[in-house]
């Protein structure tokens, strides 16, 4: 039995004890506490055993909870909006209106696809200019309707292609960042898998940025950094360490606000558990943010980004 399996057994035992305690009115709190301590230790051991490169591999898994199936499980209902109203649509970046536990929101998410056919169609989640112009359009609609904006990020990066350039992908990403900073309602980003460069940050200029435990957020892929700086893609593992792209490192740098725990073997081992963990965190943050008056929300948002990485930014 490996560590993940052992953990699962312990967790089932703890759940069983809790059920017994409740059903029979027994006080098993001491036994439960011992088990929970063991669970916490084992979890820590499993997580600490993962290298940054190991997490990059987990974050990229095609079966990672993400995209349309995740949105459909997360929300009560979802109505998709299509097209940028200028030249076209993009299957790699999708969005629309949704209800989350009865609350109206607008949602934007990357679609990577699970099967090879889906992946090819969605360009592995690399959205082109149309995707980001569409995202900006949906942000504007959401602003008009004062809807909170939730973004779910999982992309290797924006698509580097001739058409993308001809349709001003750089301008589209800049426009998304600018639009998101102006949004007149709470904004929340959750990095579910790979938070790749400009394609990720275009959807991440949010009041709060959450990240799943094994997800990553980086200015460049480890392979890209390795080939530019080490002149050899074989140094990707070393680059992954240097880039400080893991959830805990990002939290320490102030790049993200909260790490959402994953099932010990990775989020893909527990789709429903991941959905529930993300939903819980999202609802909690949205309710905190919704309590703030708009001018205070915008002031805090400005402060969060204005001082990012700067000395004295801790204030």
């Amino acid at each position, binding site marked *: 039995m490996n560590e993940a399996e052992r953990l699962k057994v312990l967790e089932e035992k703890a759940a069983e004890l809790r059920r017994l305690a409740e059903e029979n009115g027994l006080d098993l709190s001491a036994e439960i506490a011992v088990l929970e301590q063991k669970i916490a230790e084992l979890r820590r051991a499993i997580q600490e055993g993962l290298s940054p490169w190991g997490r990059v591999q987990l974050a990229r898994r095609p079966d990672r909870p993400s995209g349309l199936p995740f949105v459909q499980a997360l929300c009560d209902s979802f109505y998709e909006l299509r097209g940028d109203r200028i030249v076209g649509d993009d299957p790699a970046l999708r969005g629309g209106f949704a209800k989350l536990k009865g609350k109206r929101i607008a949602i934007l998410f990357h679609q990577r696809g699970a099967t090879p056919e889906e992946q090819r169609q969605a360009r592995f989640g690399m959205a082109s200019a149309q995707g980001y112009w569409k995202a900006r359009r949906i942000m504007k609609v959401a602003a008009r309707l004062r809807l909170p904006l939730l973004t779910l990020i999982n992309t290797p990066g*924006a698509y*580097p*292609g*001739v058409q*993308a*350039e*001809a*349709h*001003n*992908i*750089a*301008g589209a*990403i*800049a*426009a998304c*960042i*600018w639009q998101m*900073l*102006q949004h007149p309602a709470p904004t929340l980003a959750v990095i579910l898998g790979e938070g790749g*460069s*400009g394609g*990720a*940050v*275009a959807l*991440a*200029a949010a009041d709060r940025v959450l990240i799943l435990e094994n997800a990553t*957020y*980086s*200015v*460049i892929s480890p392979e890209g*950094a390795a080939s*530019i*700086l*080490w*002149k050899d893609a074989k*140094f990707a593992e*070393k*680059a992954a360490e*240097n*880039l*400080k*792209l893991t959830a805990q490192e*990002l939290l320490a*740098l102030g*790049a993200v606000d909260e790490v959402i725990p994953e099932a010990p073997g990775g989020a893909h081992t527990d789709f429903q558990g991941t959905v529930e963990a993300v939903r819980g965190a999202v609802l909690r943050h949205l309710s905190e943010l919704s309590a703030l008056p708009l001018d205070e929300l915008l002031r805090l*948002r*400005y402060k969060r*980004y*204005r*001082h*990012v*990485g*700067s*000395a004295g930014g801790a204030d």
Partner: protein
Amino acid sequence: MPIRRDKRDRYVEIEVSTPPEPLWVRCESCGELIFRQKLQENQYVCPRCGAYFFLSAQDRVASLVDGGSFVELPPPQVVEDPLGFSDQVSYKERLGRARAETGLSEAVLAGTANVQGIPVVLAVMDFRFIGGSMGVGVGEILCQAMEHALQEGKPFVLVVSSGGARVQEGVLSLLQMVKVVAAREALARAGIPYIAILTYPSTGGVLASIGSIADLTIAEEGALIGFAGPRVIEQTTGERLPPGFQTAKFALEHGMVDAVVPRAKLREELARALSVLVDER
């Protein structure tokens, strides 16, 4: 490092050992041996074939503003090497080298100046400094320059020469994109005009943030303007790049810039743009 276009109309960068400054410089585009002083007088454009050489931030400032009017803003204090990054060379060492080679503290030089009598806040990026890349230091200088423009009620002018984000600062460099847009939003709310001048190269995270959202955008003839570099596009997609791809003319034809201007006319063009954006005094 001079730049030129090859037969397929793509840009090619050529490494040239610069220091100590030789008296003569060879144009890698046409092969002409040019007297350095002559090249300087011609604003680093080859007098024979018209190829554009990189312009240092200092030379760029001199070429755009009224003589003696530039006053550098005090450089901000930022955390250096926030990630403790090290590849074949440590990031600290790279920074030290870049400073020694360019005489700049960071990849952007910012200050107040007059352009044909019109007061502005000007920030000029320098490609020689780690590819003109934007990390925390560059982000902070740009923000403080925009904030100074806001306080003084002066237009903000940015000359982009940048390959994108500073890889050695990881996610913090990525987040500088949001930071500079936040400062730009404050400028917009105060109604302060912002003019961008895109030069060789204007790519990556700088173009995908502050470089693309000016009120008026001028491309220098010889600029390279694009999100992804030509090599990345070819390698990732296998697509053949059309002739003239990502040139200033391409950007104009695809609706990304308002004007394309040769280097020698840039100052005059900037003054003309400023004159319609500020009130008579």
